[in-house]
């Protein structure tokens, strides 16, 4: 059987890609949402890996919930994206700096 660290390493790579995606994203806010999906995917993979190697189904239950919440988050995130676009005419991350101190 493939050692668990292989899976964990893949998941870590995906996590890193997700984080990098948020930091170096282009001008599109939707990429940020996709990066978040990547990060969640890597977290889910971790859960499943441990669930498998520890023989504990609870890990999979958590993945189930995370998927549910992620779906809800994606729905609401996209809804917000839509009204943002309606208000400003673009979804460029560079111009979303209302929080600037």
């Amino acid at each position, binding site marked *: 059987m493939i050692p668990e660290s292989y899976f964990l390493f*893949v998941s870590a790579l995906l996590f*890193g890609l997700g984080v990098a995606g948020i930091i*170096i994203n*282009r001008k599109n806010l939707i990429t940020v949402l996709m990066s978040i999906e990547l990060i969640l*995917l890597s977290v*889910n993979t971790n859960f499943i890996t441990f669930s498998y190697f520890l023989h504990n189904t*609870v890990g999979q*239950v958590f993945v189930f919930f995370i998927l*549910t919440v992620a*779906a809800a988050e994606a729905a609401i995130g996209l809804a917000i994206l839509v009204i943002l676009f309606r208000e400003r005419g673009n979804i460029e991350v560079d111009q979303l700096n209302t929080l600037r101190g």
Partner: protein
Amino acid sequence: MITPLYLIFYFFSALAVFSGVMVIASGSAMRSVLFLVLTFFSMSALWLLLNAEFLALILVLVYVGAVMTLFLFVLMMLRTSAMRWREGLARYLPWIGLLVLMLIGVLAMILTKEPVSLIMFRVLPVAADYNNLADLGSVLYTSYVYPFELAAVILLMAMVAAIALTRTPAAFSKTQNPHQQMAVKVRDRLKLIKDGDTQ
């Protein structure tokens, strides 16, 4: 020792990482979404390797079938500009790359560190009649039945919220404004005109 299992693992891992890279590096958002779908597919294959058949299928059906489709719909509705690199990003890119590499390294280190490492656990052979679905269901509907219901409520709320957020204020909808009704004066409604007045 290269077994077919390893081959499958390497193949789908490589595919997942490659498509992951393409998600953040590709030229257009549409392509990014499609690469994300590919990532999900490959990862679901890895999940199958881990005996999580139900979740692997859910990932493909629900995530790829529903959520990614949602992304595509939204992308179609929005007028997306060409994906340009942010100005000055090239200068910082090596540093960000280094940072991310460090993060990955640290995560890898921490996950394979002795106390956390699972090498000490011997993987038991899976029983021939192991049923992932029954296994998951028996936990989900017993110990986690209330969180399960809550998850359903969260989905409902997400749906309601998404509709409420994106709904354009209907111009033709008939609503009352009690404040305006209370504040109304006689002269707002009635105008006395002298008989024969040209005005």
